[in-house]
């Protein structure tokens, strides 16, 4: 095994080159850009890099993977991005695992609805979904005419920050399955939270070289601060994650509302969502499945009303025959159920052409942002009636 493990300079040392600034003004430390450049330009043409970015929470995995994708796009016309962080995905709303071919288009996206913000509840289903997406990447060719033997696209895999216990096992499992060419390990200052150094996922010697790169967070001060913070402040930051998820969902469902409506507050959005005519579908025409839990049939509609569901296509060519996990076209809010007319009302930004094939609604534990349910005037009125 020819292992080329490189270490970035220690956090205390001054960077060798001036820090790069991304167009949005995000501070990119020089070790990061060096690592991204080496991944982009050092790999052979016939074997594009498959990079897995791992590390504990708040270590800058997503930021670095975004930077890496941009760097790769300078050399390659297309770059694949596998997002396995169900809590805070990059391109999709929370609860989804996805593979994107950047520059991203809807047609070049494959998404699986996991239905939870953490893999904790069903690690096996999570791993299966990741492998299904990775298999899709391996078989993906930019054009139909391309040879199966042609080189694949470079791949960037972003992983969740759960690196202890089952989370660690899952990461090992993923790394073993994917056999990456590069592994970026983000390390924070509190060592006990970091992943073990070296090729921790494999004790058997590998045939091909693995470039192991260690990086430190961009804002080490913040990390240090986070660790030295009192427990109550950490809770606040954790709550911030929840808030970020809500914002993601709100932004996602804002796409349902016509863009010419100037919506600036959540209240306005809630009003707009309540007003737009939803899609209607026959209850008998779709299947409803609960992920990670069983719901008695008598309670299905109670559990479904006013919740977020994954809109998936259970049949057709897109379904993997081996794993049987249906592709997800997007999320929707079940905004009302009328049993008497056998109709289900759904709000979703998914265009009708993609929605046509949807015949399976998956319900997980993705909570609808509370602010979308709060419509002061009407709610007051309803409460008055009750």
């Amino acid at each position, binding site marked *: 095994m020819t292992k080329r493990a490189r270490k970035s300079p220690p956090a205390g040392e001054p960077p060798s080159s001036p820090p790069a600034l991304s167009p949005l003004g995000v501070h990119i430390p020089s070790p990061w850009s060096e690592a991204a450049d080496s991944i982009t330009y050092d790999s052979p043409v016939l074997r594009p890099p498959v990079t897995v970015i791992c590390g504990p929470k708040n270590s800058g995995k997503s930021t670095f993977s975004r930077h890496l994708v941009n760097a790769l796009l300078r050399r390659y016309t297309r770059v694949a991005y596998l997002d396995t962080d169900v809590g805070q995905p990059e391109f999709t709303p929370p609860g989804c695992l996805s593979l994107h071919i950047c520059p991203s288009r809807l047609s070049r996206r494959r998404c699986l609805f996991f239905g939870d913000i953490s893999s904790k*509840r069903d690690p096996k289903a999570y791993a299966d979904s990741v492998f299904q997406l990775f298999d899709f990447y391996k078989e993906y060719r930019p054009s139909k005419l391309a040879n199966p033997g042609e080189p694949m696209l470079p791949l960037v895999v972003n992983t969740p920050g759960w690196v202890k216990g089952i989370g660690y096992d899952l990461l090992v499992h993923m790394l073993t399955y994917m056999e990456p060419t590069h592994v970026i390990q983000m390390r924070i200052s509190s060592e006990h939270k970091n992943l073990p150094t070296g090729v921790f996922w494999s004790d058997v010697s590998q045939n091909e070289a693995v470039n192991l790169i260690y990086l430190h967070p961009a804002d080490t001060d913040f990390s240090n601060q986070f660790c030295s913070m009192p427990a109550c402040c950490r809770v606040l930051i954790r709550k911030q994650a929840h808030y970020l998820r809500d914002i993601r969902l709100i932004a996602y469902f804002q796409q349902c509302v016509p863009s010419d409506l100037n919506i600036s507050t959540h209240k306005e959005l*809630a*009003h707009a*969502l*309540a*007003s*737009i*005519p*939803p*899609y*209607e*579908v*026959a209850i008998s*025409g*779709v299947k409803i499945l609960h992920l*990670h*839990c*069983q*719901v*008695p*049939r*008598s*309670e*299905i*509609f*109670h559990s479904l*009303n*006013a919740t977020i569901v994954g809109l998936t296509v259970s049949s057709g060519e897109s379904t993997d025959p081996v794993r049987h996990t249906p592709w997800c076209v997007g999320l929707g*809010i079940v*905004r*009302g*159920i*009328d*049993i*008497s007319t056998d109709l289900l*009302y759904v*709000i979703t930004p998914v265009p*009708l052409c993609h*929605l*046509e094939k*949807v*015949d399976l609604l998956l319900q997980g534990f993705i909570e*609808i942002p509370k602010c*979308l*349910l709060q*419509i002061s005037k*009407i*709610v007051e*009125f*309803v409460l008055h*009636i*009750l």
Partner: protein
Amino acid sequence: MDQALKTANRPKLAFELEPAWMGALALEWLKSHYWEPQRSTIPDIRREIRSRLHQMIGYMKKKQQLRLNHSQRKEKCSLKQVSKITMIIARLYSTYPYEVVSVLLEQLQSQALDPLDNEQAEIHHIKLLSSLVPWLLLNLKELKNSGQISIFEETQGIPTSIKFTPKISLKEILHKCLLLSLSGNKHLIDSTIFIAEMIGNSLLIKRVKGLHLLMLQNVHITADDSASTLETLFLQEQQSIKQAIEKFDTLKSRRRVSTEQASVKTEMKKKMWTVAKRWTPCPIGTLPCTFSSTPSIPVLDESVGVCVNNDTVINEHECGDVSALGKREPSHGISLPDNSPTPKKLKETAQNGELDDVNWQAIPSMKGLLLVDGIWRKVEEEELLAIESNAFKRVLTRSSCPLAGRRIGRRSFHTSPALQRTRLGRAT
């Protein structure tokens, strides 16, 4: 035996001849000496029928002449003869129906083809003969119904069990009648419909009727045309072509409409997802009311009837493992009071699932019941007093672990103090 005796008495064959000739010669001899005489003894049915019919015709003619001469006595006599011959023919018909009918038809045909003096007489004859066809068919039907004859249908194989070989094919008769009815004879037309009805094929009846309507139209046209000129004929031809084109166009348009409807239906099927046509703003989770602008809370309980799975009773101990995994299990129905040796399970609700009032009424009142390990049990006051003591309570919960499969009898709580003691002892 016959043959053996006869050959014994006749002069023997010369066996000196060559063997090649022998077979042929023997057959020839057999034919001349045995087969031919035997054949001559067999009566020729057709000939007999024919002669009988001739006789009948003769008598009929005689009768007509006598009627013209007004000699009643002789007429009566000939009538007797006629009835006698009719009886004979009827008997013959019962044994040889096909032969009788065919001879009769032959006779009729020969009579019809007989060169007659004038055209009117011919027409009269045809009318007369064709008027007989419905009568014949009626008889045929009666005979068929009474089971005296069987009718051969092409679709069926010939049954071997039937005594006489069925030779009458209704389709053949229909075919003949249709050919003959082209002249527009009403009797024949009626009889074709009659045959079609006898066959019992509704489509065939429809077609035959349609054909006759067309034929009747043609008859009218030809009747009208008898005096018309070539020009009018040409005009009528044109008219009919025009009508045909119109009919064709309407058919085409109908077909188009039906295909369009079909395509619309398939589109409807395809369009499972549609945007709601009418919508009044209401908060997420509620439904717009059809009568007013106020939102309504949807009734989601109707589905209770759909599939309520109450067929199993799981107590806490069974649930324990599942809850440890952090998974929600479907809630289970309340079990019935423990009146039976084993914990009684609620019967599965009807498939279409109305949890009807009867079921609710069937559940007795909760008075005097205590929920023990998910099962409602009748508890008397004494038992309650006993339960009050902590030690006994523990015993009860421990002993009720296997309650799902076994009932702890009331006696064991009360009338067996020894057992109580032992349990208490174990508990303490």
